[in-house]
């Protein structure tokens, strides 16, 4: 019997992997992919509770999360392209214009 607990543990694992990716990697593409992983973990939790409560609200919110993920990917990749045109790098340690 698969309980909601199983899905929550899976979501927590995926979210933590995404956090580790965001915090440790230097390649901006991998960081954006890790953010997508975290959004997927959130979706798993939303749909697990939607299934557990027999209500469709969680699935509607998962659709909104997917919409935000698509918008975030489009804008994020636009920023990556603009950044690459200026600095010729994907390494976030070299993109420190606003750091002091």
């Amino acid at each position, binding site marked *: *019997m*698969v*309980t*909601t*607990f199983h*899905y929550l*543990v*899976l979501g*927590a*694992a*995926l*979210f*933590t*992997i*995404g956090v*580790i*990716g965001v*915090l*440790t990697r*230097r*390649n901006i*593409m*991998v960081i*954006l*992919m*890790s953010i*997508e*992983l975290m959004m*997927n973990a959130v*979706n*798993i939790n939303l*749909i697990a509770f*939607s*299934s*557990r409560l*027999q209500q*469709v609200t969680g*699935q*509607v919110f*998962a*659709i*909104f999360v*997917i*919409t*935000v*993920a*698509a*918008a975030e*990917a*489009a*804008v994020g*990749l*636009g920023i*990556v*392209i*603009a950044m690459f045109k200026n600095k010729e790098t*994907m*390494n*976030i*340690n070299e993109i420190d214009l606003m750091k002091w």
Partner: protein
Amino acid sequence: MLELVLFYIFAAIAVVSAILVITRHNVVHSAAFLGATLFAVAGIFLTLNAEFLAGVQVIVYVGGILVLFVFVIMLISVERAVHERQYNRQWTIALVTSAILIGEIGYGLYRGKDSLVLPNVLPAVAPAAAGNSEQVGTALYTAYLLPFEIASILLLVAIVGAVVLSKKRTQPEG
């Protein structure tokens, strides 16, 4: 029993691919493993009886977002980045932070475990009355119509923003 086996198969694929996404040196490999993770998560959605979301996951994530990632990787040279150092200097503190996060989530799940194990008590909705897509569509176009429209405006803003960010820099006037 079958659903337990399916859950463990999909969960194992998702977690292993996710770990490979953040550890591979080549970005193209990371993108490929991200696709595997997204497909596995779609399978997880199927085990939760969310067929519409599984379809949306495959079409939007794998067919849209992942292809966008691969396009950008194609535009940007990857050869140099493969040989660079892949992890930044704060990786020890990052791992400590993640360990704290795991502990926190694990403790919360452990304490709240008893509140999660009563799905059998809830009456099952008559499955033949309305399909999953129909239910989601009805909720989306009635109770959640305003958020739906706001989401469409968000997408419009994102389209305009992406075009402005990635178009060629034109010469200033005069």
